[in-house]
């Protein structure tokens, strides 16, 4: 453990900045979703409505991802590719697994 005390005010400022940085895109995304909801293009994860192609992905999700965590409850299709690439590196998923799980998350 290599902990050192840093300036608390500075640390709080960093926390506040991160919250703002995190909140701004969320607000932006929220507006975007409102706009999207008026069109049929809006999609979120629909695991129950998985077609045949998603079955392999669902199976691989259970075999790999679910060992550590559950699926995000509401994963935007805009993020699914990034999430899967992140997890491909973190969990050493094969390229095929990544593709199948992406189909499951983003049918």
């Amino acid at each position, binding site marked *: *453990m*290599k*902990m*050192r*005390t*840093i*300036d*608390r005010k*500075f*640390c*709080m400022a*960093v*926390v506040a*900045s*991160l*919250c703002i*940085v*995190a909140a701004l*895109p*969320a607000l*932006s*995304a929220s507006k*975007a979703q409102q706009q999207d909801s008026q069109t049929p293009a809006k999609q979120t994860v629909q695991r129950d409505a998985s077609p045949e192609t998603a079955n392999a992905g669902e199976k*691989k999700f*259970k*075999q*790999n991802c679910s*060992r*550590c*965590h*559950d699926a*995000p*409850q509401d*994963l*935007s*299709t*805009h*993020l*699914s*590719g*990034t*999430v899967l*690439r*992140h997890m*491909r*590196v*973190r*969990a*050493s*998923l*094969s*390229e*095929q*697994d990544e593709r199948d799980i*992406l189909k499951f998350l*983003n049918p």
Partner: protein
Amino acid sequence: MLLRMHLSIGPRFSARVIGFLWALLFCWIPALSAQDTPLISGGVGFITSTNGGNTTYIPIVSPVLAAPLGDHLLVESRATILDSYFPKGNGQSGYTGSSFLGLSYLQLDYLANRHMTLVAGEFLTPFGTYNERLTPIWIANWESAPLIFSLGTMNTGSSVGGMLRGSAVSTDKVSLDYAGYFSAASTNEQFNSQRSAGGKAELYFPQAHLEIGASYNRRLQDEHQNFAGLHLWWEPADSLVKFRSEYAHGKHAQGYWMESEFHLARDTNANAFRRGLEPVVRWQQTFRSSPDSSDGLPSVDTNRADFGLNYLFPHEVRLNTSYSRQFAATGNRNVWQTGIVYRFLFPTWRSK
């Protein structure tokens, strides 16, 4: 050891470096395809720990940034920012506090082909399973790391250098994953690491949900040491139980942990309250063969039993509670811990 955080906490300069690097990434990332929007994820939570009668309160934020750059590159980073408030001690009343800021990893990944990814930068040291898989606060079942956490992870949990990793073989029946790395010695406050090298290999049988793996790391500075580890995870298909275990061996100490996680119900038609409940138990033992104040393990043989009851609320909120009893020649003690964590996931901006 409260929290599993392998924080490298630096002065203002280093903290500014982190902020600058993150800001640079936001500005640099080009417009991407619809599914590849850069994201900020992570967890924000509040943890309490009562150890030997003293309670510490810890508000914590652990953001993750993941940003694809084209088809083969990915930048990813995780930081931890926390405040901790604890009793002043020495007969004084009231609380005092301290703040911490640290990077767990900041790495550039190049997906070279379907079997190999090259990683450069600061990354989580591949040893066993806990460091790479179970340290995120929105995943962890416990608010404290296993007693053997520092064996093989070189205390810091992070390495600075390069790593090759991937899935060598992946079929319906078996997959073989590997990771090999080299780390330089670094005394930079935010990128602190020891000179070391090593790797791990894991065999996973997806139909049986059984994984067996082995790790080996060697410290190449100060007193050179070998660390070896074994792990076994078994999560029977359609079962409500998960079993995880890990063993680590060092020159001066060794130990293991094993835990079981129970789900009272998985069926979506089941009672929502039962679906959210997760009782967990963990048993740990460490054995000291010779004194070493630097390896992070207890100075004497220690046994510890952890009992947890976690609840997964809707909307990505998780509540962890646990009671632990630790037995050692230096004294037995009780540890009570609670934590509530909200997991967030945002796009950094609207994609095309």
